């Protein structure tokens, strides 16, 4: 009995929001103790990233009624994390972030279960991600966001009228910060724009033209990039530059300094060298706290319906006064990632190899080095070698057979898109329809023919 009342009063504040009806809530909101208990019992949340945002997110979610959390991060703790990643201490330096973050939160909040994954997001099978009710992103790169976005959108299925099927929607909440600024966005695939629909929000990183570096350096950054991108390779043939190796960094700094002196340029310091070479984004505790808190609040609202949700992009800027702005971003109807998928009509005789060649020539795809998955099964994998060998025999089989002679279904392909050195890995959803098959295929007959 004492236990029960203690449990009840632990959620003293949250109960007000979850147990009482209100006028400004989502239509799905069903206030009551069941809602609170279901949140604890059944809802699984994945936090991607255990850095500045991730640490805050784990705390915020654990104190917002969520009990089943998982966190994935490939990084280890560094000294320069300690000014904001409050779950880490000096003695934790070198340990995996995900592991320490999960442990610290569980130590302080009893009843919370946090599983950690110390690996790259690409290392997890796609199925791993389907297990969560919602995915919260605390990342610092556009590439990683793109990847998770593609995975989550990959689960989305459309009905015959091209309307998203609600049970296949995997919502995401994404946060990001830089200095005193940050953003929060809510992505409900098929309903609100996905990361790819609005990829223009992320400015392309400016790179200096090589001729400027080599011939007309004008500032400290030019001298540093010359040492880093040109001089290093000239001097250290074959040895890759490692930005985490202090000796390498020192070498670049010294070379940059020499070059700056030669041209009468000032401003090369060790700290600035690190900033340019590693593209360091300034980060502070307060901004991470603000953005993570808004992400956690949106997660709670999406899952429970206890209030309206952000629609759908919040910008926060604290550098010049304080400005916040909510923008209702528009979905792109022919988005390759969250749209119904590119329709590809095939003859039943087309082999997997032929199909892969078609993807390379496809005007909207231009995919090379393609790997193909169908309903979680690997049809062909470029890597690792052992998987490649295992799946190689499939190349000569008809795709129709590999797809269990299904007339119409979704398959996922992963490959390289883009041109020259701008190639990047991307995941695409394709809607395959086989020609000349009736809606109701007799599988046995087709197999026997």
């Amino acid at each position, binding site marked *: 009995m004492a236990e029960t009342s203690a449990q009840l009063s632990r959620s003293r504040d949250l109960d007000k929001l979850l147990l009482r009806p209100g006028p400004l809530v989502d239509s799905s909101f069903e206030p009551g103790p069941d809602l609170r208990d279901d949140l604890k019992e059944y809802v699984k949340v994945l936090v991607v990233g255990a850095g500045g945002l991730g640490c805050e997110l784990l705390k915020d979610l654990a104190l917002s009624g969520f009990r089943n959390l998982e966190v994935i991060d490939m990084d280890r703790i560094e000294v320069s994390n300690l000014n904001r990643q409050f779950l880490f201490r000096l003695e934790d330096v070198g340990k995996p972030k995900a592991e320490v973050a999960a442990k610290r939160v569980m130590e302080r909040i009893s009843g919370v279960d946090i599983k950690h994954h110390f690996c790259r997001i690409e290392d997890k099978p796609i199925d791993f991600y389907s297990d969560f009710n919602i995915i919260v992103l605390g990342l610092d790169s556009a590439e990683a966001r793109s990847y998770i976005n593609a995975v989550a959108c990959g689960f989305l299925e459309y009905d015959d009228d091209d309307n998203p099927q609600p049970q296949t929607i995997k919502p995401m909440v994404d946060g990001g910060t830089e200095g005193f600024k940050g953003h929060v966005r809510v992505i409900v695939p098929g309903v609100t724009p996905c990361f790819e629909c609005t990829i223009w929000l992320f400015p392309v990183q400016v790179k200096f033209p090589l001729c400027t570096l080599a011939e007309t350096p004008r500032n400290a950054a030019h001298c540093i990039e010359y040492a880093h991108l040109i001089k290093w390779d000239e001097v250290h043939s074959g040895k890759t530059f490692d930005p985490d190796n202090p000796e390498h960094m020192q070498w670049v700094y010294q070379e940059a300094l020499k070059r700056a002196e030669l041209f009468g340029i000032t401003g090369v310091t060790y700290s600035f060298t690190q900033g340019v070479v590693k593209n360091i984004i300034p980060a502070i505790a307060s901004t991470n706290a603000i953005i993570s808190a*808004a992400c956690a*609040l949106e997660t709670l609202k999406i899952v429970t319906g206890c209030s309206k*949700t952000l629609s759908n992009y919040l910008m926060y800027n604290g550098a010049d006064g*304080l400005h916040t702005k909510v923008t209702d971003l528009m979905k792109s109807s022919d988005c390759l990632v969250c749209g119904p998928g590119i329709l590809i009509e095939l003859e039943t005789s087309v082999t997997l190899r032929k199909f892969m060649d078609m993807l390379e020539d496809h005007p909207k795809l231009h995919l090379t080095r393609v790997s193909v998955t169908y309903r979680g099964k690997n049809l062909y994998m470029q890597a690792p070698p052992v998987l490649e060998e295992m799946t190689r025999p499939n190349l000569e089989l008809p795709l129709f057979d590999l797809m269990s002679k299904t007339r119409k279904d979704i398959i996922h392909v992963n490959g390289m898109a883009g041109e020259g050195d701008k190639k990047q890995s991307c995941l695409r959803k394709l809607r395959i329809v086989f020609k000349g098959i009736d809606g109701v295929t007799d599988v046995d007959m087709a197999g026997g023919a």
Partner: protein
Amino acid sequence: MAEPKIKYDRQLRIWGDQGQAALEKASICLLNCGPTGSETLKNLVLGGIGSITVVDGTKVEVGDLGNNFMVDESCVGQSKAKCVCAFLQELNDAVKAKFIEEYPEALIETNPSFFSQFTLVVATQLVEESMVKLDRICREANVMLLFARSYGLAGFVRISVKEHAVVESKPDHMWDVIGLNNPWPELRSFAESIDLDTAEPVTHKHIPFVIILIKLVEEWTKSHGGRLPSTSNEKQEFKGLIKARMISTDEENYKEAVQNASKVFTPRGISSELQTIINDGSSEVDSGSSDFWVMVAALKEFIANEGDGETPLEGSIPDMASSTELYVNLQRVYQAKAEADFLVMERRVRDILKRIGRDPYSITKTNIKNFCKNARKLRICRYRTIEEEFNTPAQAEIQKLLIDEDYCFAAGFYILLRAADRFAANFNCFPGQFDGGLDEDISRLKTIAVGLLNDLGCNGSNLIEDLVNEIVRYGAAELHAVSAFIGGVASQEVIKLITRQFVPMTGTFIFNGIDHKSQILRL
């Protein structure tokens, strides 16, 4: 403590060694250490604030475990201030952390001089009456004050400081190429030394756009009776003139010249914002004036004399397509002018100090130089007292927002949070704080809110109907996520106030956790 330079690297890139030193010198007092207060301090302790003093008279209850990360099961029944302080100390051993087990209201009543020892007081979850009293105390003692409150899905942050002057406001885009239509002699002769019509294509595409513009402006004014391009036709014509000088389509320097052509047309002189500052009564300085206003007084003289209507030059130029030699030399011309302007400013500052009876060297060279570099970007923030705001709020502003489609919730929350305090003063609990009698609380709160709106001379009672229900539903809950947001905002503002860099919020920030259409109210 190990390697503070590395530990603070990511923030030193924002506010530098000077900002960090200011933080490390600051002492902060926190009133009430619920999640809003605890989270505010957490963000400051991580960044290496000098010292903190946590004031809270309550003991940790089981309910606190559900919204405050700084307390755990072992804390139940103990002083909340003590437990929160212990956790905060764990985050950074460079910070001096103290606690006082005392109710803030009691300190405000019985020991007002207590507050004068701090750089800044963060007062969380205080009701109106205590806010007014504390504000009076802190103004008198010249201590910066910041209020933060979380209330269900609502909340606010409010700064209360008489005057906050910012030299390093660090705006995003504030680089203007000065001197394009009025080059000083050295810049003019540098431009004259360069031949735009060189036949050598590599040389041609490496002439900085600054030089191109200076020379073409001169050409233009010669043929237009000394006038600059002013009508839109003339501006187009001028851009055409630039394009006509290109000898190949890939000349980045000429493209930059076209992009920056508008800077030629911009009238000379200072911004209206800076004009307001130099016209401010405080620029009439006396022995009691701050260093900032002494330098403003010098700036005013500079603009009226040597500056010929302009501020001292900051001396840096952005990157532009150019040969190394021309760029470096151009940079030197700008730096030399900035140095000359600085020397004039320095002399004027010293003269003014002497005139007002202060040690002429009491302001350092570094500070004057820094002031010159940022002269165009100076900012002054002033905040009304809480009492003034409560007694005579900006009625028009509230009324406007109450009927604004996007921001009526924020305005409504402002009214209702004040109404909730009046409710609490009358009934000894917040509306909806306990589970029984919610309907009665709704009608009581509504009556109070309507009364308050009338007092303020506003009308909007039907608009806030839904919000009254919401506020009663919240029952003064301090939700963790909302507290972390409010605490984050509060700590960001504290950092701006203490480092005197960037510009703090200039009104009352009302948090709207329903759809995030939060708003700054200028009250």
